[in-house]
């Protein structure tokens, strides 16, 4: 009974926060609601037993996206206050009402559906090199998806670079913030490294570690504790591209000298997975930090 109450309360709060984000009178309020939505979403994932997703959602959905939106709001304050028009509200109410019965009809039979895959994952887990099923799926069974996902993150960075935005120049830091930051940033790095290492056995891994490291970098940059580096500098490009490069080179190497594309040799599976995870988390950290902070402009000649 209590569980049911908690779950329905969470669901209702999610819906309310979503509506508040969409229809708040000021953009600033919307952004705050959006960050709240991300945090609540993380709790919902945790309730559903998806700890990996909860960690990623809390770090990226609530944390980094929030900083990004706040920064965008500061650089480009809205020119007009928005007032929801009655007609758009009407559409927003009608469309879900029309789709809802279809979705309910489709989702209801799923509760009893047989799921053969989790059992298969458990059966093969011993041969995957790691003991956490999520990591096994992401970096061994379906590593091709993960390689392409890393490319998606890279594309996002390349995309924002085309827009030739200037990097953010933070306000002069506040002494208390500086003091806190000197404590928090090393802690975040350490925690990220721990998550990365734990990923082989328990929830955690490259995306979560990368996101944590990225937030530490963003924090340091916002307080002016890190120098700005230009994309022209290979010392920035190499770590940003590290994850994808290592993954692709390993794929080609396993084809040329191994048993086939992305087939990890049985003994070396754990080492290779850790190598990929380490490279990927460095790449993700740098990429996410660059997405949020921007880099020194150099693009348009």
């Amino acid at each position, binding site marked *: 009974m209590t569980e049911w109450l908690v779950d329905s309360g969470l669901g209702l709060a999610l819906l309310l926060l979503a509506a508040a984000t969409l229809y708040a009178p000021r953009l600033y309020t919307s952004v705050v609601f959006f960050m709240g939505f991300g945090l609540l979403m993380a709790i919902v994932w945790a309730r559903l037993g998806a700890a990996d997703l909860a960690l990623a959602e809390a770090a990226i959905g609530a944390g980094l996206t929030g900083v990004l939106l706040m920064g965008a709001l500061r650089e480009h304050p809205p020119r007009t206050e928005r007032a929801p028009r009655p007609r758009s509200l009407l559409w927003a109410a009608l469309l879900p009402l029309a789709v809802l019965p279809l979705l309910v009809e489709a989702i209801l039979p799923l509760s009893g559906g047989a799921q*053969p895959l989790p059992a298969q994952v458990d059966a093969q887990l011993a041969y995957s090199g790691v003991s956490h099923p999520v990591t096994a799926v992401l970096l061994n069974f379906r590593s091709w998806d993960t390689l392409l996902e890393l*490319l998606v993150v890279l594309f996002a960075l390349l995309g924002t670079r085309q827009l030739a935005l200037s990097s953010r120049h933070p306000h002069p830091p506040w002494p208390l913030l500086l003091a806190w930051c000197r404590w928090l940033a090393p802690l975040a790095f350490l925690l990220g490294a721990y998550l990365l290492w734990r990923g082989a056995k328990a929830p955690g891994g490259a995306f979560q570690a990368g996101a944590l490291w990225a937030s530490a970098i963003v924090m340091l940059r916002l307080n002016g504790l890190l120098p700005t580096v230009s994309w022209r500098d290979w010392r920035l490009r190499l770590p940003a591209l590290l994850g994808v490069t290592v993954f692709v080179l390993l794929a080609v190497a396993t084809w040329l000298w191994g048993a086939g594309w*992305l087939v990890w040799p049985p003994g070396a599976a754990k080492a290779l997975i850790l190598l990929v995870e380490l490279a990927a988390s460095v790449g993700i950290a740098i990429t996410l930090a660059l997405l949020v902070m921007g880099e020194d402009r150099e693009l348009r000649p």
Partner: protein
Amino acid sequence: MNTALLSLSAPLLAALWLLLTHRRQAPVVIVASLISLVAAVFSLYQVIDAGEQSLALGGWESPLGIRLRLMPVSAMLLTFTALIHSLVGLYAWRSRHSQTRHTDYWPLSCLLHAALAALWLSHDIFNWYVTLELLGLVAVVMVCLAGPKAYGAALRYLLLSLAASLCYLLGVALLYGVYGVLDVSLLAEAARADPSTRTALMLMTVGLMLKAALWPLHLWLPAAHSSAPTAVSALLSALVVKGPLFILWLLWSRVAPEELGQAAGPWLALAGVGALLVGGWSALRAPLIKLMVAYSTVAQLGYALLALGLMLHWRELSLDAALWLFVLAHGLAKVSMFLAAGEMQSTLGSRRLDSLKGATQTMPVAMFAFAVAGGSLIGLPPSGGFLAKWLLLLPLLQNPAHWPWALGVMLGTLISAAYVFRVVAISFDRARPTSPDFNPDRFAQWLSLLPALLVWGMALISEQLILWLTGATL
């Protein structure tokens, strides 16, 4: 199969090399495209010799891992992608009017190539979602290369593309919830016509139609394709919109249970006729050169959708060949048209269609390329467009009861003839020609003629093409 993967990894490695060294070297890109082309041709030969091939990535069998599959259609699309990339790369490198020579176009076009190759080879509905994300993102980024004036169109493209991705992903989640597998072949064995499957297919279809700009969900395409740099417009129109179409085709012809396909067929075909008429009409009224070419893409995609819908409704397998012939013929013709249009608009100094007055005299080669490519879009024999249209019309004309569809195709042809001849007629108006601002770039104009000639050359190997394509579906 390894050659197909080589065709995927060559552009990917080239892109990483360019990004790491931070150079904008066109020759690297062109060499990578050519390597990819050779590898793709080899894989095509292998498929024709030995039939469909598949490869379990990571050595894990399909419900657990991801299985890539090389079908004749995917091998042909792989070759086609590499061919178009080499041609367009050559244009972007050598043309004097190329706006993309000193931008990040080079790594991005390589990444686009790799994303498309990954999509053609994939046979897994979740892996397709990832490739769709890649494709949508890189396409938006490439539209942004045109500078701030294209940002509006690019942003609209991005938002709609993301909404479409979410729609598709919800469908994938439903299918996974019902059947517990993601591989297309396994899904095809298990699929039943229950409400969950129907809703999932509906959601995925809406997402894919939005991404492929199929009428009535095409509204983002004209602005995005016409505001992109010329080389990018050519790639977007010839290749990018075909990716979601490929998934839509496999989804309905392989995964969907027969009765659902039969029920959905007429609606898809109706949307196809709608695209032909509305897109054609908009192309006829478009004031700008590239906008007209972009609207013509909306119209031409209607043929493919019509072929898909009718194939599902009647289970007529020759229509599959018609669909893919349309895709190949349209892709080649569109590259030609966009390159010619780009050359003409930058040499004549105006984006407006009326500035083409006297172009037959001042820029004969580019105008000829435009007209020849237009001939294939109309479907004049013996072009590739004619071949596809003939295959589409055969089953329509055999049965008198099918006259409404035949009428739709005829009207579409009439409109496409009208918009092509409108341009040609303006260009023959030599009384007050727009004088070109300087000596035109001959090489780029001849280059734009090449794909148009290729599309007419498709007639020479038509029998082979049809055999390969129908062999794929039997």
